[in-house]
């Protein structure tokens, strides 16, 4: 903190006090200090463990992409394509939209094996295929929620109901952040809509609001809400007003003696610095051409889909919004941001209306993300950041090996669709401490998990573990419970099999 000399003494005197107050800036606050100051029983939270990752980039494909068409090459399912789904798969199951007996639907696109690991990847993702030896594909994910909003909440907050802190909030609450001038938990959204569960997905729940995700916007407005000075005002004038504010607050502090006033001064100074550092880090024009090309990014591009009522029909394969966000994510972690959360909307391919089909929309969505993701991995590697950044990719559940039949029971071009499938789906992780390869298997038609099931709790436990937090010990006392991201029971386990 760059305080003027005459304030440094005051600061020293009240240093203890500072830490005790409910936060200051984004980086400096450690949770136990905040806790003790708000009456939460002073728990010995020895939850920190050696960290593999410094930062996390979480790429959430909101709506849930079809694992059957991207990762799960299932010749047996292809064999049953067009046949009625056996009753054993339907009895006692709750579906969002499937009614009666749907037909089985094989993978729609070609598969090939890639890399030394020889993993099957769909032809829709040439970029990911080229870096497949850097990622660990988990083919045996499962969840217990089959509607978007609750499933997204379960994944990101550990509870299907609203009101719980998000993963990014938990992590920044536990570890703080390395850059005081930037928020520790940044959210970037693309696809034209916020995900189903809305901003609650990056809310702080019962944690102090300081830890909520800060959405950095790339759609032309302020990158962070209220960041810009009012029109007609300039930096010099802002400096002049802040200097006066500082002087006046100091006079007042002399009179009242409340260290909070000193925090206030710092708060305004931090805001002033943020006004410069955020646009700087968000400015993609600073990137050289070959890097922009690597991601497929276009600085300053604002897609029509971002402001459309129904963006799905405006999706274009060369829309660079997600690519821009990936590049931003790299710039943010490079600058010490702890948790960067990307949401890309538009992956809910039911095939029941226009712009949401497996056969036509999925390829477009894949083109929007594929090069960018390969670019991100390549770029992190060439900068030596890959080993200290954890990348997670996936949706909130999977999609059925059956076609969705509530509108029509026959396949029609532009309307291939699959319903929500919580029993088995694919995610991948890469970077810090993750062993590349494949983990888990599903059965011959991709309906159930065959080997090494990984639940949402396991995923959360693993993410916390890699960032240096013991997921079982890390908690916050609230509502009579030691609340944890991984929930109250100990079912969640770190997935040892994917760690290097």
């Amino acid at each position, binding site marked *: 903190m760059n305080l003027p000399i005459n304030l440094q003494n005051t600061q020293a005197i009240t240093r203890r006090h500072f830490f005790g107050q409910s936060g200051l800036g984004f980086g400096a606050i450690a949770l136990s200090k905040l806790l003790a100051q708000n009456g939460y029983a002073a728990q010995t939270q020895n939850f920190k463990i050696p960290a593999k990752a410094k930062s996390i980039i979480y790429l959430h494909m909101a709506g849930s992409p079809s694992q059957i068409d991207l990762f799960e090459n299932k010749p047996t399912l292809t064999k049953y394509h067009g046949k009625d789904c056996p009753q054993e798969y339907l009895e006692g199951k709750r579906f969002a939209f499937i009614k009666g007996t749907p037909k089985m639907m094989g993978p729609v696109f070609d598969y090939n094996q890639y890399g030394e690991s020889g993993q099957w990847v769909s032809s829709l993702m040439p970029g990911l295929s080229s870096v497949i030896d850097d990622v660990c594909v988990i083919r045996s994910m499962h969840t217990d929620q089959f509607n978007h909003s609750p499933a997204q909440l379960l994944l990101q907050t550990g509870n299907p109901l609203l009101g719980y802190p998000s993963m990014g909030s938990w992590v920044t609450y536990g570890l703080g952040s390395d850059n005081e001038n930037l928020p520790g938990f940044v959210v970037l959204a693309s696809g034209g809509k916020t995900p189903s569960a809305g901003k609650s997905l990056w809310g702080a729940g019962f944690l102090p609001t300081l830890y909520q995700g800060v959405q950095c916007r790339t759609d032309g407005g302020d990158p962070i809400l209220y960041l810009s000075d009012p029109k*007609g005002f300039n930096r010099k004038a802002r400096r002049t*007003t802040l200097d006066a504010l500082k002087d006046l607050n100091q006079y007042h502090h002399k009179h009242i003696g409340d260290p909070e006033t000193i925090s206030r001064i710092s708060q305004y100074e931090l805001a002033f610095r943020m006004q410069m550092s955020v646009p700087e880090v968000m400015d993609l024009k600073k990137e050289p051409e070959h890097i922009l090309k690597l991601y497929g990014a276009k600085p300053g591009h604002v897609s029509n889909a971002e402001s459309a009522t129904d963006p799905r029909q405006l999706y274009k394969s060369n829309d660079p919004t997600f690519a821009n966000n990936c590049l931003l994510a790299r710039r943010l972690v490079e600058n010490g941001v702890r948790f960067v959360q990307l949401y890309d909307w538009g992956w809910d391919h039911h095939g029941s209306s226009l712009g949401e089909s497996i056969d036509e929309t999925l390829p477009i969505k894949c083109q929007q993300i594929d090069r960018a993701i390969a670019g991100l991995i390549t770029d992190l590697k060439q900068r030596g950041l890959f080993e200290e950044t954890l990348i997670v990719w996936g949706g909130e559940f999977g999609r059925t090996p059956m076609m969705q039949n509530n509108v029509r029971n026959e396949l029609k071009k532009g309307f291939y669709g699959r319903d929500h499938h919580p029993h088995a789906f694919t995610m991948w992780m890469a970077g810090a401490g993750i062993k590349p390869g494949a983990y888990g298997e599903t059965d011959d038609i991709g309906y159930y998990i065959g080997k090494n099931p990984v639940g949402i709790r396991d995923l959360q436990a693993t993410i916390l573990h890699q960032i240096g937090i013991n997921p079982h010990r890390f908690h916050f006392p609230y*509502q*009579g419970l030691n609340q944890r991201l991984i929930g109250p029971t100990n079912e969640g386990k770190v997935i040892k099999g994917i760690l290097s």
Partner: protein
Amino acid sequence: MKNFTLLLLISLPNLQVQVSGKISFNQDIQPILSSNCYSCHGPDSESREAGLRLDTREGAIMDLGGYRAVDPGKPDESEIILRIESEDQDEVMPPPESGHVISSEQFALLREWIQTGAEYETHWSFKTPHKQPLPDIKRKEWPLSPIDHFVLKKLETENLPISKDASRHAWIRRVFLDITGLPPTIEQAEQFYNDQENGAYEKVVDHLLSSDAYGEHWARMWLDLARFADTKGYEKDLHRDMWRYRDWLIKALNEDMRYDQFTIEQLAGDMLTNPSPDQILATAFHRNTMENDEGGTDNEEFRVAAVKDRVDTTIQVWMGLTMGCAKCHTHKYDPISIEDYYSFYAMFNQTEDADRVTPIVPTPTSEQARQQKEIQKKISQLQIALQKKPEAFQKDLENWKGKFKNQPLWEPFTLVKMESKQGVILEQRAHGILQTKDENPEKDTWTLTLSIPDDSQITSIRIDTFPKKTGGKWIDKNVALREISAEWNGQDQESRKVNLINPRADFSQKGWEVSKAINGNKNAGWAFSPRSDQPHVAIFDIQNPIKGGNLLLTLEQEFGQGLLFESFRISFSTYPVRWLKPVIDYEKEFNLIFEEQVFAKTRNIHDKIKRETKALNSLNSQISKTPIMRELPESKLRPNAIHQRGNFLDPGKNVNPEVLTFFGKIPSGYNTDRLGAAQWLMSKENPLTSRVMVNRVWARLFGIGIVETEEDFGSQGMHPSHPELLDWLAVDYQENGWSLKKLLKSIVLSRTYRQSSVIHKDALQKDPRNRLLGRGPRFRLTAEMLRDQSLFASGLLTHRIGGPSVMPPQPPGVWKSTYSGAKWKTETGPNRYRRGLYTYIKRTSPHPAMVTFDAGTGEVCQVRRIRTNTPLQALITLNDQAYMEAAGNLSNQMLSYNAELSQQIAHGFKRLLTRPPGKKELQRLISLYHQLEEEIFNKDDYLQSAGLQTGNPAMVALASVLLNLDETLTKP
């Protein structure tokens, strides 16, 4: 950090107790056992290890086979002492993997406790509160109220100083902000400043408590608890009208409704005998739960989630206990078993709502109710007037009816010929009925040539349809007359278009209104499903009446599926069109037609009734419908069972409705239902309700509760800083008739509250957080208070109480919800400047300026807002449109106050801070003003940012500085 913790602890009273040697189980021992041991050795038998429980004395001293966990008087033989001391990783307690560690201080306390007999005590908050005698104090002249005795006693014991009284300016700003959420005006402050009478302070408080702003301010606290929002939550997060509940709340607070009544109405107003509309509206409290409209969700799943939320919220709000964990297993710390949970749940599980907005009821505002009454009264007066018919009425009626003997009101046309695209043939039968000869085709268009009488003008045509016969090719009995058009071949043989107007029918299908048959658009027309098996009538008037020749009527019926006329009649009338009503049996209505349309005097009254009825309907359509609680009828009551591991799809043992019996029974005369539960909460035997409420009020005034963990009065919560004070307030609140206004008054008139918030260095070291109240409260204002204060001081605030939520400016693009077309429509009129509690709350996208200042999202019950400090907050008060407009208006207030710069600045300063600026402050502001005048910035743009056409940009920027002063953002 560790050093800091120790330092802090030393200043806390509980270690002082250790020094004095007296051990209190509640204060010293239970916190250790609770946080380190209970999770495996507590009330929950499922997770209990080694069959040992330490939450009861019986369990702790139980013979474990020659040894005891706790052996009273013999710490060295007590297993827990040995285990804590053990160095064996397998033996040591608490187990290392639990993360719990018992400090040496705690260990010493435990030893001493066992040594002195290991007595247990009921948890302090589970014992009924009593007023203790006021403690002896040294500075007897200081207290103004019993509150001060308790506070002073503690300070004297701890050897901490009290503070002198706050300046009058500071006190009046503080008390205004605390009671109304708004600062005083300069005039109000001056009046108090100069009022040297004895009752000056009390006069101010009484004035504030009787102002409307009081209810608005204190409603906000309750709205947090009620998880109030304007939308339903989850994916679609659609709008739901809940604002009438907020109106109810403001009114209840302003009327100082007793807390017991307030509670009963909100939890069970619908179950009272003959509940008033307001009592039913109050039950919307528990309809603030979320609803999930996402496609494919299971309504029962989210209904159950809502009921659980009601249970958790009820216990949390009234008893300060946390039930959440007992959903899945018996509470690990407090005496609430999973069975208790679902027994309590059973009382709340009997309402009609099921993840849908229903049941809802119209909830008129008092103004709307008044208007309703007024119109209804007018209508009934008019109806009475109709009863008395003038003498001439009967005779005139008979005369009038006589006309129809010669010329009936309606007379069938004679069919001259017809054309059909599909060759359909119509036969005209008795009474002019037209009948298709053969089975109808799928679709067709007919043109009928009908003969018009030569002697009188026809004014209107009428179609009667009769039910189709059953059997045959087409199943659907409906008719879809997509378009009807007419041409007139007059006697001169020239063809002219005939304009049909005033379409009306006895019945129209939804979306197929009769008017659509003449709108020129063939996509829709007149149809009458689901009443296709009944006769129907439609009437079309002729714009310019015609005489003689033929009428060519084209009936377009090309919808398909055989929706064509089969048996029907087309008639004409020669009478005034207002006599022609779309009724099947019009002769029966002659009397009515005569009364309504012909006889001047009665027609007049009928016209008035129609006007009033229209006004009433339009008023009714504007009345908000609010979701409320309604009990299921006895026959539909739901069975109740434990949800195993909290899973509603996995029912366990059946349970009966019951309250938490550890805290007493439902008062006699009440059933085990919601009403009984409400009575139980408010019964005198309930040890928590009153304590929890007074503590909450205390926390809003002093920044921290006497029990800091407002949300947890259970064994995991914190011990009160002033237990006797808390109990005194709790009992006094009951004795004063549960009056919140009296409670507030007694606190804000205390000397404790009146203290200056200037912090002495010494006090800062010893009591940094002012837990012992040796100075006045000083902390940042809430999101709403900040907004309200800036609007009020700048003169922008719209003083309007209640009403629907409003949409003040928010940055564009903040709302981008999935599948919901809802749009943020920024207010441009007076609603742009309403108080913060009226700002629209969309749960998945709340107003960013509110949330950044720690306001909740209304998703779940929020007991307290943890105050945070982030740079984002500074950006809001510096740059947000709302604060810029406030700066703009404030600058104008300053400029128009006086011509002199220093007076202008001092005026703005006082509008916000009440006190005048000090000399140094004023100088600094004046120099700032001159600096700003020099700074280069775009004058016009900047004024525009502040919502001004003309003005002084330097003064706007200066006003913005005033709005951002630490003192402005903080309660003095």
